[in-house]
C-alpha cells in the first residue's frame, strides 16, 4: 500500500452482497443506481470505489469498478455511463437485483485539516467520485468551488448536489446549452489563476486532468487527480491497473485511484482505448 494511503488509514475491503434499491436514468446513457450495501456504506471514504460483479455467467467474468458517488445510511449511490456490456447490464438492473461487491477500495481524496477552500474540477462523469467529497468537505466547513463541464446541459449530472453544498458552481458545456461554451479547462484556467484555492481535486477524461494538473502546477496549487485503469482484481494483486509515476508503476486500485498530480508521469500513461 502506498504511504499516502496508509496515512489516512482507510479500512479493510470486504465482500458484500448488495441489492439494487433504485436505478434512475439521468440522461442518455447515464444513470444513477442506489445499492443497499450497509457495510461498505459505513466504511467508505470520498474517492473510493467498489468492484461490482455485474455478470452472472462465465462468459464475461471480470468485475467492473465504479466510484462511490454518495453514501447515506445503508446505501451507496453510483453514477454510471453506459459504455459496454457491463454498464449496459447495470443500466438494465431493476430494484431487487442482487450482486456482490468488493469494497470500499482504493485510496481516495486527501484534504488535510486546515485547508479552507478547495476547487473540485469535474469533466463529464468525473463528477462520480467528487459528489461525496463535496458533501464531506462542506460538513467539515471547508469552502468548495466546483467547476464542471459536460457535452450538454442534461449531462451536467450531479449539478444539483454540488449546488446544494458548494459556495460556487461554474459550468461549461461543449455546445453552450448551459454555462459557458467550451471545455471546463477554460474555466479552471481563470479560477486557478485567481489564486483562491489551497487545493484542487480533479476527475474526468485523462487529457482534461492533465491540463488541470499543469494549470495547478503553474499556479503552485496542490492538485489531486483520480485516474481510471482497466482493473482485474481491484485489490492490488494483479498489477493490471498501473499508472506511471515518478516512483515507477503504481497500482490505481490501491495506491490510487487518487494520485498527487505531480507524481503522475503523464506522457507514459495510456488511457484505455476510446470509442
Amino acid at each position: 500500500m502506498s504511504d499516502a494511503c496508509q496515512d489516512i488509514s482507510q479500512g479493510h475491503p470486504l465482500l458484500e452482497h448488495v441489492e439494487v434499491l433504485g436505478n434512475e436514468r439521468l440522461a442518455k446513457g447515464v444513470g444513477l443506481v442506489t445499492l443497499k450495501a450497509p457495510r461498505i456504506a459505513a466504511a467508505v471514504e470520498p474517492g473510493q470505489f467498489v468492484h461490482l460483479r455485474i455478470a452472472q455467467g462465465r462468459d464475461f467474468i471480470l468485475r467492473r469498478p465504479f466510484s462511490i458517488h454518495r453514501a447515506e445510511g445503508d446505501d451507496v449511490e453510483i453514477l454510471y455511463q453506459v459504455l459496454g456490456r457491463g454498464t449496459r447490464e447495470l443500466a438494465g438492473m431493476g430494484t431487487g437485483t442482487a450482486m456482490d461487491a468488493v469494497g470500499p477500495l482504493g485510496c481516495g481524496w486527501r484534504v488535510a485539516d486546515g485547508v479552507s477552500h478547495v476547487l473540485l474540477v469535474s469533466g463529464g462523469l468525473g463528477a462520480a467520485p467528487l459528489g461525496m467529497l463535496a458533501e464531506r468537505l462542506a460538513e467539515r466547513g471547508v469552502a468548495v468551488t466546483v467547476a464542471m463541464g459536460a457535452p450538454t446541459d442534461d449531462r451536467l449530472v450531479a449539478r444539483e448536489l454540488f449546488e446544494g453544498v458548494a459556495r460556487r458552481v461554474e459550468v461549461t458545456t461543449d455546445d453552450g446549452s448551459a454555462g459557458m461554451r467550451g471545455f471546463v479547462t477554460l474555466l479552471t484556467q481563470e479560477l486557478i489563476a485567481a489564486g483562491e484555492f489551497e487545493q484542487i481535486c480533479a476527475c474526468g477524461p485523462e487529457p482534461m486532468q492533465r491540463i488541470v494538473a499543469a494549470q495547478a502546477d503553474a499556479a503552485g496549487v496542490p492538485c489531486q487527480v483520480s485516474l481510471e485503469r482497466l482493473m482485474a482484481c481491484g485489490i492490488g494483486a494483479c498489477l493490471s491497473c498501473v499508472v506511471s509515476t515518478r516512483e515507477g508503476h503504481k497500482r490505481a486500485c490501491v495506491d490510487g485511484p487518487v494520485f498527487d498530480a505531480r507524481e503522475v508521469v503523464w506522457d507514459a500513461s495510456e488511457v484505455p482505448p476510446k470509442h
Partner: protein
Amino acid sequence: MTFSTDMSVAIGTLSLRNPVITASGTFASGREFADFVDLSRLGAIVTKGVSLEPWEGNDSPRIAETASGMLNSIGLQNPGVEAFMERDLQWLADNAADTPVLVNVSGHTAEEYARVIERLETVDNVAGYEVNISCPNVDEGGMVFGMHCAPAADVVAKCRRATERPLIVKLSPNVTDVTDIARAVVAEGADAVSLINTLLGMAIDATTFRPKLARGVGGLSGPAIKPVALRMVWQVANAVAVPVIGMGGIMTAEDAVEFMLAGATAVAVGTASFVDPTAVIRVIDGMAEFCHARGIRRAADLTGALVAEPDA
C-alpha cells in the same frame, strides 16, 4: 459424517494440507487477499514471479476481457528478489508461517534464474520454487525458454544445481508437444511440473482499429482455456513420473476435480481469484464436500482416476 477425507497431498518431499494452491501472479504474495482468505487454509501460496533485478513490466492497458477469459500482458513487473525478500517473504513469515511458500522465479537468462534461487536459499520460509519458463509477456527469457527442449533443460539444470528444495517447472502451452518439454525438464531433475501457463492471444478493438493491449499480445487465462489445460495435464501426467500441478480456468471445485482426474496431484486457482477473492477457499471447501459426498477417503485418490473407456 462417518469419516473425514484426508485432503493432504505430496509434491515430492513437500506435503500440502490440501491440493489447492494459488496460481502465480494472481494472488501477489497473499497479503492483498488476507482480508478475504484465511491464508493458513491454503495448500500453498505461490508468489508472483520474482527476478534478480526489479522489472517495470509493460505499458497499460495490460488486460482485456475475452469470451470466458482474459488476456494479460503484465510483463512480470516485480521489485526484484531483494525487495521481495524484505517485503513479501517477511510479511509471509509474520502472517502465514504455517503455509508453504513456493516462489515463482523468472530471469532473462538461465543464470539469472539460478541466481534468484541462490539468493532465496538464504531464507527459511521458502518451501520450494516454481520456475517460470512460460511467461508470454516478456521479450527476453520467459516463454522463449519453455518453447524448446534445450533451453528449458538448461534453465532447469542450472536451477537444480542451486537448490535441493522442491523444484517445480511451469510449462508453456504454446508448444507443439508439451510432453517433450516435460520430459526434458524432468530429465534435468525437476521434482514436479505445473501447467498450463497462459495461451498467447490477442484482442483487437474494431472501433479504434488498435490492439486492446498496449503490448499487442498477451496471455489468455480463465475458463476459456480449461479444455486445453485439461488435455495437456492429462498428456503430461501420462508422460512423466513426477507430480503434476494442474491449472487453467479453474473456477469451481468441480473444475479442480476434473484436473485431478486428468492426473494432477495438486491444482492452482488463478483468474478466479479476480472474479471472486474467496475463490480459492470455495474450491478447497467444495473439493472436501465432493470427496465426502462420494465416500472418497483421500483426495489424492482422485489423481489420475479418470476412467478412460467411454460409458457403456
